[in-house]
C-alpha cells in the first residue's frame, strides 16, 4: 500500500521536497537517539575515570597510539569520500556515487582490519576482561574495568560501521540502476549523515581512550 511513483515520491507525501525534509528530520532524530545510546557508555566512562584515574592511565598506555591515529586518519578520509558521494548524488552522477561509496566502504574495512589487529594484540596480552585477564602479573584490577569499557565502546562503534557498510551496498545497487537524480537522492544523504556521525563518535573515542591517560597525573588533575 505504500506505493512509490516514478520520481520516487511515496503516496502519502505531497511533493519530493516534503519527502526529503521528512527523511532528513527523521535521520537527525535518529542520530539524537544514537547520541543518547553512546551517551550511556560515555557516562560510565566519566564515572569510572573519576573513580580510578590511575587505572585509566595504566590502561591507556597499553593502547597503540600509532594504530589509533592511523585509524583516525582513515576514518576522516572515509568521511571525505562519503561527502563526495553525496555531492555526486546531488548532481545525479550515479557512476561517481558508486565509485565514492565503494571507496568509503574500502576505508571502512581498512579501519575494521586495523581494529582486528589491535584486538588481537590485546588478546595476546591477556587484556580481554574475563577469567583470563591479567595486568602486569596480577589478576583483575580496576584496569579490567578500563578494558571492559574499551571493548564495549569500540565494539559498539565497530558494529555501527558494519551496519554503515551494509547500507552502502544498498546505495551502490541503487546507483547501479541510475536511481539517483538531483531531485531524488535522500538515501545517499541520510547514509552520509549516519557515516559522519560514526566518524564523530570515533573522534571522541580516540582521545578519551588512547591519549588522555598518557601525560601522567597532570592531565587527570591530581
Amino acid at each position, binding site marked *: *500500500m*505504500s506505493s512509490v511513483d516514478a520520481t520516487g515520491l*511515496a*503516496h*502519502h507525501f*505531497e*511533493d519530493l521536497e*516534503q519527502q526529503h*525534509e*521528512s527523511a532528513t*528530520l*527523521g535521520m537527525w*532524530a*535518529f542520530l*539524537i*537517539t*544514537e547520541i*543518547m*545510546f*553512546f*551517551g*550511556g*557508555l560515555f*557516562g*560510565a566512562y566519566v*564515572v*569510572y575515570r573519576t*573513580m*580510578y584515574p590511575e*587505572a585509566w592511565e595504566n590502561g591507556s598506555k597499553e593502547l597503540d597510539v600509532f594504530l589509533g591515529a592511523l585509524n583516525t586518519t582513515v576514518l576522516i578520509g572515509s568521511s571525505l569520500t562519503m561527502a563526495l558521494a553525496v555531492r555526486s548524488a546531488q548532481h545525479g552522477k550515479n557512476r561517481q556515487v558508486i565509485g565514492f561509496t565503494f571507496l568509503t566502504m574500502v576505508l571502512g574495512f581498512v579501519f575494521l582490519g586495523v581494529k582486528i589487529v589491535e584486538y588481537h594484540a590485546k588478546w595476546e596480552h591477556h587484556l580481554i*576482561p*574475563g*577469567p583470563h585477564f591479567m595486568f602486569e602479573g596480577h589478576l*583483575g*584490577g*580496576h584496569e*579490567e*574495568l578500563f578494558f*571492559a*569499557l574499551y*571493548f*564495549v565502546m569500540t565494539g*559498539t562503534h565497530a558494529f555501527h560501521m558494519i551496519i554503515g557498510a551494509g547500507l552502502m551496498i544498498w546505495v551502490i545497487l541503487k546507483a547501479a540502476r541510475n536511481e539517483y537524480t538531483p531531485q531524488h537522492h535522500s538515501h545517499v544523504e541520510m547514509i552520509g549523515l549516519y557515516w559522519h556521525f560514526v566518524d564523530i563518535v570515533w573522534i571522541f573515542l580516540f582521545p578519551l581512550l588512547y591519549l588522555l591517560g598518557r601525560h601522567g597525573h597532570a592531565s587527570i588533575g591530581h
Partner: protein
Amino acid sequence: MSSTVAPHAAAPRPDLPATDGHAVEPRENYLNVDYGWKSWLLSTDHKRIAVMYLITIMFMILVGGSFAILLRLELATPAGDLLQSETYNKIFTMHGVVMVFFFLIPGIPAVLGNFLVPIMIGAKDLAFPKINLLSYYIFLAGITLTLIAVAMGGVDTGWTFYTPYSSTYANSQVALAAIAVFVTGFSSILTGLNFIVTVHKMRAPGMTWFRLPLFIWAQYATSLIIMLGTPVIAITVALVGLERLFHIGIFDPTYGGDPVLFQHMFWFYSHPAVYIMILPAMGVMSELVTAFSKKRVFGYHIMAFSTLAIAVIGFFVWGHHLFVSGQSTYAGVMFSVITMLVAVPSAIKVFNWVSTMYRGDVWLTTPMCFAIAFLGLFTVGGLTGIFLGAMGFDIHVHDTYFVVAHFHYVMVGGMVTAFFGGIHFWWPKMFGRMYPENMGRISAAIIFIGFNLTFFPQFILGYMGMPRRYHFYPEEWQVLNVLSTAGATLLGTGYLLPMIYLPWSLKFGKVASKNPWGAKGLEWQIDSPPTTFNFDKVPIVTEEAYAYPEGSRHQREAEVV
C-alpha cells in the same frame, strides 16, 4: 503541502457532513478494502498497524493480568501456600516486565497514537509507513523473546533488573529478558521518531502548532522522551547482558564496578518512562473531557506547555528512586525539590480538566465515566507521589506497599483508565460500530470500585510497614490483604467485560455515524471507519482545536439539540 502554512482565512471549509445521518451501504474503508492475512501482516497503513497493535497488546494485558491474579491469590493468606518464594519472585517480575514494556509504554501511542496522529493532523499516513510496520515486528520479536524467557523458567530480578543481583547472582533467564527489553526499546524508538517527523512535516494546511489537538501535543512530548530516554535503557540492559555473559565487571563491585551506577542509568530512562506512560493518557483525557463537556479546553496554551514541561522536568528527577541507595544527601535534596516541581504541570492539567467540565454540558457516556474515574485516581496517585518525593517520608515507606499503591494509582488508575476511555471513545471511528453503552458504564463503575478496593488498602499496609515483593506477611495484615485481593477480582472482571462486549459489538453493535459524539476534530469529519488514505482531499484547517460554540450552557444546549 508545506508544513508552515499560514492560516487560510478565506479558504472554504471542506464539505462537512451535513448531519449525523445514518450510514448507508458502507463504502470502501481501510477494513474492507482487501481481506486475507497478507493484506494485514504486510500492511503499511497506520490504521491496520494500530489494529494489529491493539490485538497484540490486549493479549499481553491478559498475560500480565493473570500474573497479577496469581500474586493477589497468594497474598490472600499470610502464609506462603499457593506460591513459594522463588516462583513468587518470578511471577511479580514477569507481571512487571509484561505490563510495563508490553502494555503501559506502547499502549496508547502504538494503538491510539498510530491510528489518530495522521488523521488528527490531516495526513494520509505517518511519515515512514514501512518503519511503522517494522516497529510492530520488532515489538513482536520482543514479546516472543520475553515469552521464551518465561517458558524457560522466567526471571526473578524484579522488572528493575537491579545489579549486582541481576548481573551476578540470579539463576534465571536475565540475559534473555534483557535482550527482550533491548529489542522492544527499538520498537518504541521507531514509533517515537515517526510521530515526531509526522507532526513536524505532515500537518495539513492551516494546522498550526497551536491548533493541534492536545492529544497530538501529548504524543509529541512522549515521542521526545522516548527518543532521549530509550537509548539509555538499551545500552544499560545491554551492559547487564554483557556482564552476565562475559563478566566484564562494569556493575560488579569485585572489579571496582558500581551497582549504583546501574540504578542511575536505569532510572534515567525508567523515570521518564513513567511520563511515557502517563502523558499519552493525559492527551486522551483532554480529548474526552472537551468532547463530553462540549466546551473548549480551559487554557489550551498552558495545557500544551505543561505537557512539554512534564517531558522536560521528568528527565531531572530520576534520583528520587535512589534516596536509600547511597546517593549523596545534597543530590537527594535537589532531586526531591525537582520532583515537587514536576507535580506543578500535572496539577495544572487536573485543574484545567475540571475547569473545562465546570458549567459544561457534561454527557456521561462510557468514555466520560472513564475520564472522571481518571481524574480521581490520578489525583490520588499524583498526590502520594509528592509524599514519596519528600525524602524523609520516602525513607519510611521505601520498598513498601505504599509505593506499590502509588504507582498503580498512576499507571493503572491513570494510564489504563484513560486507555479504556480512549478505546471506547474512538471505537466507532476505528471499527464503525457502537459498543453497548450501558455495559460500558457498568464496566467503568466496576473498574473504579474494584481499583480502589484493590489499591487503597495497600497505602495503609505500606504505611504500616508491609514490604513489597514478599509472598508472606504477619497475620495482623490479613484483613487489608483480603480486601485487596477481593478488589483485584472485581477489577479483573471490570477489565474482562470490555474485552467481551467490544469484539461482540463488531458484529452486533449499532452502525456508527461519522460523528456519534458531535465532537470536534478532523477525525470526526471523515468516514467511520476511515478510508485507506483517510481524507478524500487534503483538509484545510480554519479553526482552533475544540472549537465548540461559546456562550451559556442553555444557548449551547439549544444548538446541540
